[in-house]
C-alpha cells in the first residue's frame, strides 16, 4: 500500500463524508500495480457522488481493466476539506484503487461533461503533482486526455490537454491506449506519438493546430500542421457494444444510485438547442433480449434495489411498452423498482409511468421547454399545448399530485408573450391539478427555468445568448407571477449560465482566463456555495478578455473556434435548421419519417438501428 495513503487514512474523520475517499466498494477492480504496463487514471472533475453516477466512466473502467496489460483506476475531485488534509500532510491526489498519485499513471483521462467543471481539472492536476500546461509536460509525465461532450468545442481547455477524444470511445480506445503503451516503451518525444495517433477516429491533438486572430478579435484561421482532421468516433455496432458486467456498488448515496442500463444511444428528435441530440446521432437501439439478459445478471450481481432504462429519450425506444412490462414482470416481485429518466409529453408516457411506479407515485417531469407553441416550433420541440394538457390530465387522473415542468428562457426569437406563456401554462396545469385533487395539500407544481446557452455543433450555435441583466429581468418577471401555495419556481444562477456560455463557445484565449480564475481560487464553479463570479470578473479583466464577445451572435461567415472539428452533422443541415427556426418551421424525426439529410450516417459510416414493431 502507498505510504502517502498510510499518512492520512486514519485522519478522514476530519473531513465531511469520508466514504467519498475510501474506495473499497463492492465490485471495485484492484489490479496489481507493478504488473501492468499501461496504467490509466479515469479522472472525473467533480465529487464522487457526481462522477460515480456517470455511465461513461463505468464503461471505460471495466473495458480497460479487462485488458491483461492495462489497468484503470478512478479519481474524483475532493471537496476543499480533503484538499486541505492532503496538502497539510504533503500527500498527492491519488486513485481510489491502489491509492497511487496521479503522477504515477501513464495516462490520465478526464471526463469533460460540463463547462463549469473545468477549474476542477486544474485542481486535480495540481494536487496530483502534474504540470498544468501540456507544453510544460515531457514524455516522462502522464499523457492527459479529455473526453465527453465538451470536447466538441474543447478550445478553452486546449492548453492543458495533450489530446482530446471526440465522440464514443468504446470501439477505438483500446487501440489508442495500445499505441500509447508502445510509444512509452520507445521513450521518444510526444511528437512521435502524435503522428501515430492522428490516424484514429476521434483523436484531436490541439497542439498540432495553430489559431490566428484578426484585429477585431475574430478567428483569422485555424491551420493544421498535419493532414489529420479530427472526426467524431461513433459506435457502429451498438447491439454488441460493451456494457459493464461488474457494476460497482458505492456506499455513499450517489446522485444516480441504481443500475442504469443504456437501452439506446442517440436521439433524432432534432430539438435545435440540444447538443446531445446532434452529437450522439444516429439513434441506435439495443434489443430487448440483450437488455433483459444483462439486467438480470446486473441486479443479481449488485443487489441494487432500483434500475433505470436510460437514454436521451427512452419513451421513443420502439418496444418501450413491452420492455417495461417485461422488466416489471422480472423485477417487481424482487422488490426492485423500475424507472425511466425522461418522459415524452403524451398520455402514452403517463401510462408507462403508471406501469412502473405502480401505487407509489412520486412525481412526474415534463419538459415543454418553451411557453408557447410558436416558440416550440422555433426550437423544433413538436409539442402542442393540447399535448401537454392531455398528458397532465392523464397524470393527475392516474393519481400523481406532484408535477415538474421544465422551461428555458432566452431562446432565439423569444418575446414577452412567450414568457407569459410559461405563466399561463403553469396556471392551466394548476387548474387541472385542483380539479382532480381539490382538497389535497400535497398538490405541487414545480416550474424549473434554465437559461438557454447556445452550444457548438447545434443549429443555434450562431445565436446570441442573453446577458446577465436580461436573464435576471426575465427571471424577475416569472418570480413575480409564479407564486402560490402549490407552486414552486426554480431558476439558474444567471452568472453561472453566462460563464457556461463563454466557455461553451470560447476559443483558446479563454484558457488563460480559466487558469487565472483558478489561481485566484475558483473551483467547483457549478456548486452554488463555492461559485464566486468576482474571481472570474477579475480574471477576464486581468487577461483583457471581454466575456460578451463570446456570447454575441455570430455570422455564418465567421470562423467559429470549433470549425476544424467534424461532428458528422453537416454545416448545411445546421444552417438550414437555423433558418427554418426563423420561419417557425419544424423538422420531423428521421425515425418516423424520411431522412432529414443531417449527414451523420454517410459522414461517419454508421446506421440508425430502430428495432420497430411492438411485440417482443
Amino acid at each position: 500500500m502507498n505510504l502517502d495513503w498510510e499518512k492520512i487514512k486514519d485522519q478522514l474523520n476530519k473531513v465531511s463524508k469520508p466514504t467519498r475517499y475510501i474506495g473499497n466498494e463492492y465490485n471495485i477492480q484492484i489490479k496489481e500495480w507493478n504488473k501492468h504496463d499501461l496504467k490509466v487514471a479515469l479522472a472525473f472533475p467533480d465529487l464522487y457522488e457526481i462522477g460515480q453516477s456517470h455511465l461513461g466512466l463505468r464503461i471505460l473502467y471495466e473495458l480497460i481493466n479487462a485488458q491483461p496489460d492495462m489497468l484503470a483506476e478512478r479519481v474524483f475531485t475532493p471537496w476543499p476539506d480533503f484538499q486541505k488534509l492532503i496538502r497539510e500532510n504533503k500527500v498527492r491526489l491519488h486513485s481510489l484503487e491502489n491509492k497511487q498519485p496521479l503522477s504515477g499513471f501513464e495516462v490520465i483521462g478526464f471526463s469533460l461533461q460540463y463547462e463549469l467543471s473545468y477549474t476542477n481539472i486544474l485542481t486535480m492536476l495540481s494536487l496530483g503533482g502534474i504540470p498544468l500546461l501540456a507544453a510544460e509536460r515531457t514524455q516522462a509525465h502522464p499523457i492527459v486526455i479529455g473526453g465527453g461532450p465538451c470536447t466538441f468545442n474543447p478550445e478553452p481547455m486546449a492548453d492543458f490537454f495533450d489530446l482530446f477524444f471526440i465522440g464514443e470511445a468504446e470501439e477505438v480506445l483500446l487501440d489508442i491506449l495500445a499505441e500509447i503503451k508502445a510509444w512509452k516503451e520507445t521513450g521518444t518525444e510526444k511528437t512521435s506519438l502524435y503522428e501515430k495517433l492522428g490516424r484514429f477516429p476521434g483523436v484531436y491533438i490541439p497542439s498540432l493546430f495553430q489559431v490566428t486572430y484578426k484585429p477585431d478579435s475574430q478567428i483569422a484561421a485555424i491551420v493544421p500542421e498535419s493532414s489529420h482532421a479530427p472526426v467524431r468516433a461513433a459506435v457502429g455496432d451498438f447491439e454488441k457494444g460493451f456494457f459493464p458486467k461488474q457494476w460497482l456498488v458505492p456506499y455513499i448515496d450517489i446522485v444516480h444510485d441504481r443500475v442504469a442500463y443504456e437501452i439506446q444511444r442517440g436521439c433524432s428528435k432534432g430539438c435545435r438547442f440540444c447538443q446531445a441530440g446532434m452529437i450522439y446521432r444516429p439513434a441506435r437501439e439495443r434489443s430487448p433480449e440483450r437488455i433483459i439478459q444483462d439486467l438480470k445478471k446486473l441486479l443479481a450481481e449488485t443487489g441494487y434495489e432500483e434500475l433505470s432504462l436510460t437514454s436521451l429519450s427512452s419513451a421513443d425506444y420502439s418496444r418501450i411498452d413491452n420492455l417495461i412490462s417485461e422488466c416489471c414482470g422480472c423485477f417487481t416481485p424482487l422488490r426492485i423498482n423500475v424507472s425511466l429518466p425522461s418522459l415524452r409529453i403524451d398520455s402514452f408516457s403517463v401510462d408507462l409511468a403508471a406501469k412502473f411506479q405502480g401505487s407509489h407515485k412520486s412525481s412526474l417531469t415534463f419538459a415543454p421547454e418553451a411557453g408557447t407553441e410558436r416558440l416550440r416550433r422555433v426550437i423544433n420541440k413538436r409539442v402542442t399545448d393540447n399535448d401537454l394538457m392531455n398528458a397532465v390530465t392523464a397524470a393527475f387522473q392516474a393519481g400523481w399530485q406532484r408535477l415538474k415542468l421544465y422551461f428555458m428562457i432566452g431562446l432565439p426569437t423569444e418575446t414577452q408573450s412567450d414568457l407569459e406563456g410559461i405563466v399561463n401554462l403553469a396556471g392551466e396545469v394548476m387548474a387541472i391539478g385542483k380539479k382532480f385533487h381539490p382538497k389535497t395539500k400535497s398538490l405541487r407544481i414545480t416550474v424549473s427555468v434554465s437559461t438557454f446557452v447556445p452550444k457548438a455543433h447545434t443549429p443555434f450555435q450562431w445565436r446570441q445568448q442573453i446577458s446577465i441583466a436580461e436573464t435576471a429581468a426575465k427571471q424577475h418577471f416569472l418570480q413575480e407571477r409564479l407564486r402560490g401555495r402549490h407552486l414552486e419556481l426554480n431558476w439558474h444562477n444567471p452568472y453561472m449560465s453566462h460563464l457556461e456560455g463563454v466557455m461553451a463557445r470560447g476559443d483558446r484565449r479563454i484558457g488563460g482566463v480559466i487558469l487565472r480564475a483558478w489561481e485566484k481560487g475558483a473551483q467547483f464553479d457549478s456548486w452554488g456555495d463555492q461559485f464566486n463570479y468576482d474571481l472570474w470578473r477579475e480574471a477576464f479583466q486581468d487577461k483583457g478578455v471581454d466575456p460578451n464577445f463570446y456570447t454575441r451572435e455570430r455570422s455564418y461567415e465567421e470562423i467559429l473556434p470549433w470549425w476544424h472539428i467534424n461532428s458528422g452533422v453537416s454545416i448545411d443541415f445546421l444552417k438550414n435548421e437555423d433558418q427554418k427556426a426563423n420561419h417557425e418551421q419544424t423538422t420531423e424525426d428521421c425515425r418516423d419519417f424520411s431522412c432529414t439529410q443531417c449527414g451523420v450516417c454517410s459522414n461517419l459510416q454508421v446506421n440508425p438501428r430502430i428495432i420497430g414493431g411492438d411485440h417482443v
Partner: protein
Amino acid sequence: MFEYRICFVKQNLLKYLSHLDLMKAIERGIRRANLPLAFSGGFHPHPKISYGPALAVGINSTDEYLDLELSRELNPEQILELLNTVLPDGLKILAVKRILQHGKPLSALINRASYLVIIAAPAHIKHEVIHQAGQLLTAPELNVLRVNKDGQKIVNIRPWLHNLTIKENSGDVLEIHLTGEIGGNGNLRPDDIINYINLPVRIVSITRTGLWHETKGMVIKPLDICEKPETGNHD
C-alpha cells in the same frame, strides 16, 4: 416469518461508513446473497432489518448486531456463509442465531458498551496521562460541552462511565479500555473521555469491543437473549 439475530464486524476502511451507508451496504449484501428478505406492508415497503445502536463514523466495531426477518426458513450457518461471500472487505458476519421468541428490539435491548481506545502519548507525558486517566473514575462529575442543532449544553457524563482501565504498550502507545452506558439512558462517547485528559495525546484508533444487555445486575450478550426470552414479553 423467520427472525435471525446477526453479530458482525465493521472495521478497516468501512469504519467510515455512516449508519445509513451501512444499512444500504447490508441490504444490498442480503440481496446479492439472494436471501428471502421479508418486507413491511403499506405504500413504502421496507426490508425488515433492524439495528443496534448506531456507531459513530470512524469507530471500528468487532461486536455489532442486527435482526433480520426472512420469509423462508434457512439454517443460520447457511446465512452466515452466503453473506460472507458477498460482503465487502471490512464487513464480516461472526455469528447468526434464530430468534425463537420475540423480545425487545436491539435498539431498546442494548444498554452497555465497551470500547478500546488506542492513544499515542510521548514518553515524557505518558505517566501523567495514566495518572489523569485513572482519576476520571474517582471524579464526582465529568462535565462536557455538547453541541447540537438546538445549541450547546453542559452534560455530566460521569454516571455513564462504568469502568476504565489503562495499559501501557510498547513505544508511546497506551490502551484504554472503557465500559459504559449506551442507548436511551445515556451515551458514553470514548472521545469525550479522552478529551478530558488535558495533555497532547493523539487518538490512534477507537474500537467498540462489546455490546450487552444489563438487567438486574446481570450482563447478557444479545445473541444469548434470542433463545431465552424475558418472561412476560410474549407477543
